[in-house]
């Protein structure tokens, strides 16, 4: 269907433009972007954006969906609905399912389920090692041929440098993007908080930011050594940013992400053992949070992810140490990011560079930009609309959000994938 968006505030992270304009969609792709003036009139519906923000849809690189094995936590149908409601037009499912996506047939299964059930674009990462055990590499060529967009062991860190090196070296011949969770496992195992006065007062087993730096420094050295394309899924500490900065300056093909929760919450949010604030890596100090936000603004951290981790109530109604880590994030991604925009720490262009453009570039996708020929994957939202978040109204099957009953600003009005409206009513002309 052909569409024309008029009276919009357009955000294009590729050109760095933020301004009033109009955008025309023909056959599911962007046909014309007109900053400052109206495009040539065409057929199809006209959508008056009411001066609200029209931006490339969010590309979320880190989403857990419970297919196969845990549909009670999240299915492709519910994750797809949550994504559409959140302005996420593409997401990448993680392979830590049950069984894990370490076999080409399983990747195909997940992608087929997504095609049937999800209204947004879905990709999946395959496992880096068999069973996510960190000992034997998976069939990279077959996984990629089956449709895996990258390879990762999700929140499992490969402990052996020898295995990691072999995986990365082999990946230079398959072209696989190696995505890894850099938390030194011998230090991190059994911990659930960031070490410091607060965790010590609560008596929680804790780990210092040094665990992130050690694992990241090792990975970056191996990336340099092998020439592999490497992406650190989450860098959350100031000390972890040092080796990342140096590797980028040295021209290592490395990129990094951070979750929206690590950008908007800190260790004190755990308060009296609130398990909805348990994350892996754990929430950090306020100084680290600020450093991560600055790194997103400067581009040192390339990508923001929701790190969507749906958990049923039982997994969270436990003592903090035993509760499952992670939170749902697809629907709260944009309003949570808007806290940083309203706080003056990120511009909308910087936000969509990290939420849409950079993940697309890293994954080799044509989305994430408002340019002619790019897919018409779009989000229209009111950056100032206030609301009180009620977790029971989330589309996600699990309701474990840390933002329950929080005042948020920024509401999605509509989401389009390839020019089709997948959220916020219909576009009947």
């Amino acid at each position: 269907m052909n569409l024309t968006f008029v009276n919009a505030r357009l955000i294009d992270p590729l050109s760095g433009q933020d301004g009033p304009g109009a955008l025309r969609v023909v056959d599911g792709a962007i046909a014309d972007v007109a900053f400052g003036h109206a495009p040539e009139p065409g057929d199809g519906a006209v959508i008056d954006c009411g001066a609200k923000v029209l931006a490339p849809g969010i590309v979320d690189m880190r989403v857990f969906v419970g297919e196969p094995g845990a549909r009670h936590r999240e299915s492709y149908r519910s994750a797809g609905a949550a994504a559409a409601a959140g302005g996420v037009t593409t997401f990448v499912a993680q392979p830590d399912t049950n069984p894990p996506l370490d076999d080409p047939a399983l990747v195909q299964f997940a992608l087929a389920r997504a095609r049937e059930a999800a209204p947004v674009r879905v990709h999946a990462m395959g496992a880096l090692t068999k069973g996510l055990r960190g000992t034997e590499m998976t069939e990279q060529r077959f996984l990629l041929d089956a449709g895996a967009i990258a390879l990762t062991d999700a929140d499992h860190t490969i402990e052996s440098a020898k295995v990691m090196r072999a995986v990365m070296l082999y990946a230079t011949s398959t072209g696989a993007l190696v995505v890894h969770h850099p938390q030194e496992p011998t230090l991190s195992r059994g911990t659930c908080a960031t070490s410091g006065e607060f965790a010590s007062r609560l008596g929680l087993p804790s780990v210092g930011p040094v665990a992130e730096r050690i694992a990241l420094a090792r990975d970056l050295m191996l990336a340099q050594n092998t020439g592999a394309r490497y992406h650190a899924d989450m860098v959350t500490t100031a000390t972890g940013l040092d080796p990342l900065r140096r590797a980028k300056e040295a021209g290592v093909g490395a990129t990094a992400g951070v979750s929206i929760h690590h950008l908007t919450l800190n260790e004190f949010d755990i308060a009296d053992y609130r398990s909805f604030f348990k994350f892996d890596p754990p929430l950090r100090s306020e100084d680290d949070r600020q450093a991560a936000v600055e790194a997103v603004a400067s581009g040192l951290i390339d990508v923001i992810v929701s790190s969507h981790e749906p958990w049923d109530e039982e997994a969270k109604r436990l003592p903090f140490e035993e509760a499952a880590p992670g939170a749902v994030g697809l629907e709260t991604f944009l309003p949570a990011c808007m806290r940083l925009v309203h706080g003056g720490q990120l511009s909308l262009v910087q936000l969509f560079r990290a939420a849409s453009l950079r993940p697309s570039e890293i994954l080799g996708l044509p989305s994430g930009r408002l340019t002619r020929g790019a897919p018409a994957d779009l989000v229209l939202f009111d950056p100032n609309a206030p609301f009180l978040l009620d977790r029971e109204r989330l589309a996600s099957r699990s309701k474990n959000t840390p933002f329950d009953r929080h005042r948020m600003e920024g509401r999605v009005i509509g989401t389009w994938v390839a020019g089709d409206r997948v959220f916020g009513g219909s576009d009947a002309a």
Partner: protein
Amino acid sequence: MSAFPHRHLLGIHDLSPFDIRAVLDLAEDYARLNQSHDKHADALRGLTQINLFFENSTRTQASFEIAGKRLGADVMNMSVGTSSVRKGETLIDTAATLNAMRPDLLVVRHHNSGAVALLSEKVNCAVLNAGDGRHEHPTQALLDALTIRRHKGRIQKLTIAICGDIANSRVARSNMLCLGKMENRVRVIAPPTLLPAGIDRFGVEVFTEMEEGLKDCDVVMMLRIQNERLEGQAVPSTREYFHRYGLTEDKLALARPDAIVMHPGPMNRGVEIDPAVADCERSVIREQVEMGVAVRMAAMDLLARNLRAERMA
């Protein structure tokens, strides 16, 4: 307004100096009762006390049991070995099940920090924390405070050294809070591997050399160290630990001449404390056990008064 305005006793963190004094003063009365021929009172008559221990403890459980019985409560012990928690029941389901039996006092020990507070949100009775993970063990800190007060005549402006596995000890945390609130000078002594992160912000003085830390102390409080930490994980060996951090007569001589020696028990003789010191006349370790019963009687009495007042209202 109650003299002790709390529904539960979850940690020293929640108590004011006034609350702490209220417990100690009442415990003093019960200490006298416990030394008399007829040890019975009826503060808890008609009430049901359940001791729910997810972690084994002979001593603390016995102390709470005797305390409850002396005050006339119906006491029931439930330990994890015989409960369905082993069969996969969650803590909250266990709490709901016990709650349906209408207990009035629930004494809980659990291996996870914060677990007792979590449980307290799901029940209608008063909950006493008998130790949660590495977090708090409030009745231990209160009985220590009472013991100190009986020997020093006060529980303020004393120099008190806590020595041993500070990082993993809930006794240390509760004592740092309690003794700090009562305006004492608190020192901790441990190898760096047994100090928690951020200890420099706890308002205590930190020593890694025992000889320095013991100088001019009024009270020397030793902590138990678990065997597995002595085998190279945090400390190279038992003998090196004893050499550096074991309390011997020589090291004790650095403290004030009238300094008392304390230990929450059970002791590892020859590991953190020389047997001769443990049994010397400056040791008040047995009296700590005795005061434990009195403090627990006082704490349960105060909570039961609030419970009754709430039910009358």
